[in-house]
């Protein structure tokens, strides 16, 4: 095994609680309760350890991170440690006083999530009435405070025909960047896959709208496009490779190489209450399990692209091929590739009703 690279970014899922109920939520089906969440003190220690280990960006995520009353303390601890602090929020609980406190604590950037450009459709998808107006207000507050803003739109078969309006809305709100991201099929997204998965024609519509937007807004707003799972012949470099650049920490303190890693049975993930982040990153067997290329089976092992896509996604290999150590079935060289094509072709012709995320007691006290 060659030298272990230093981690670049930490995604801290500080809670699973959320006022929204998006049917593609990446949180696990079994969500952590408030009483199980990592304390302010432990998060603060972890942020200092992360910065010392080489982490540069911290993404505060969830759930809705703003439901944590100690969010300003978390931001201050991270900023003091030298981390670049990005808050990923739905914006529905934002107000001007709260935002001012977060900025004063050292917040660097906000990524604001939207379910649609259209209010009624956005609120149907997110499962929260009145959410859109609050999001629009939140965007205006962020801009008024002079903080850089990224708008994030998650797309799927039920909203991808409106990508052009999403890009236009982000521009009107003053975003420096808009992220158009296809849903991923883990957690709630896997349960709702039939209601979310685009076919090739729909995918083409969304991609064409992104390409047109990039021309229209060139030099004024950056457009990031997260391509969909399942489509394509070469897998995405999931997380840029297992335990190469990213650390994800769950609300209960489990340290993971990706959001969905806990779906892989048979791997015991370490907890920040039991070890230092450096020990975990450098030595924990869960982090070594799929790191680099030694673990790879054929056809990955002899593939010229093995250090580009790092074998694709382990959780997707598990979900589609039944084996986390298999070649990602998106790869045309995978023996499971045709089965995946059949699965896309067999998607229900009419999108079934969403199964909404059930929340982990969003109103329970901190």
């Amino acid at each position, binding site marked *: 095994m060659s030298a272990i690279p230093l981690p670049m970014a930490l995604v801290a899922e500080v809670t699973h609680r959320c006022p929204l109920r998006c049917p593609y939520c990446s949180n696990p089906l079994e969500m952590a309760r408030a009483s199980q969440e990592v304390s302010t003190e432990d998060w603060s220690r972890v942020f200092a350890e992360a910065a010392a280990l080489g982490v540069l960006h911290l993404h505060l995520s969830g759930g809705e991170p703003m439901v944590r009353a100690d969010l300003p303390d978390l931001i201050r601890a991270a900023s003091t440690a030298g981390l670049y602090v990005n808050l990923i929020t739905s914006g529905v609980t934002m107000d001007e006083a709260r935002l001012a406190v977060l900025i004063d604590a050292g917040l660097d950037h906000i990524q604001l999530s939207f379910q649609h450009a259209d209010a009624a459709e956005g609120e149907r998808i997110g499962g929260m009435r009145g959410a859109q107006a609050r999001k629009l207000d939140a965007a205006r507050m962020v801009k008024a405070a002079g903080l850089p803003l990224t708008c994030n739109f998650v797309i799927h078969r039920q909203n991808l025909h409106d990508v052009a309006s999403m890009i236009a809305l982000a521009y009107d709100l003053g975003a420096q*960047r808009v992220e158009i991201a296809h849903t991923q099929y883990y957690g709630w997204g896997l349960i709702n896959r039939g209601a979310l998965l685009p076919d090739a024609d729909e995918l083409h519509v969304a991609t064409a709208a992104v390409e047109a937007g990039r021309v229209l807004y060139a030099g004024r707003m950056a457009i990031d496009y997260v391509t969909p799972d399942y489509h394509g012949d070469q897998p995405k470099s999931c997380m840029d490779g297992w335990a190469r650049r990213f650390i994800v920490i769950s609300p209960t303190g489990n340290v993971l190489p990706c959001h969905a890693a806990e779906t892989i049975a048979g791997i015991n993930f370490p907890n920040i209450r039991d070890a230092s982040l450096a020990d975990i990153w450098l030595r924990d067997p869960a982090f070594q399990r799929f790191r680099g290329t030694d673990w790879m089976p054929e056809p990955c092992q002899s593939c010229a692209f093995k250090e580009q896509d790092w074998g694709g996604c382990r959780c997707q290999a598990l979900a589609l091929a039944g084996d986390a150590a298999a070649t990602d079935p998106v790869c045309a060289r995978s023996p499971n590739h045709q089965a995946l094509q059949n699965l896309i072709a067999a998607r229900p012709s009419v999108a079934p009703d969403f199964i909404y995320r059930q929340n982990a007691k969003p109103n329970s006290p901190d």
Partner: protein
Amino acid sequence: MTITPDSVPAFPRGIKYRFDAARAVWVLLTPERAMMPDENAQAVLSGIDGERTIAGIVADLADRYQAPTDVIMADVLELLTDLAGRGIITDRNAS
């Protein structure tokens, strides 16, 4: 934004420039990226404090590296014009 010798470059909110002890390099952090500037860019970026003009920063560099001011000025204007175009620096002296 036009960057001139009278410009007062500053890092806007949402941009961080700091030393990363783990890698022993200076890093320029934007919302989505971490850049590691080369030695020449570092010398310029380290002179940015939100108060000095580019002319002041260049004079200091010319003195420190014993190099002609006009050559350094051309390089610094090119670098900072590029960074300003990407929103990584702003000009506090801009009207």
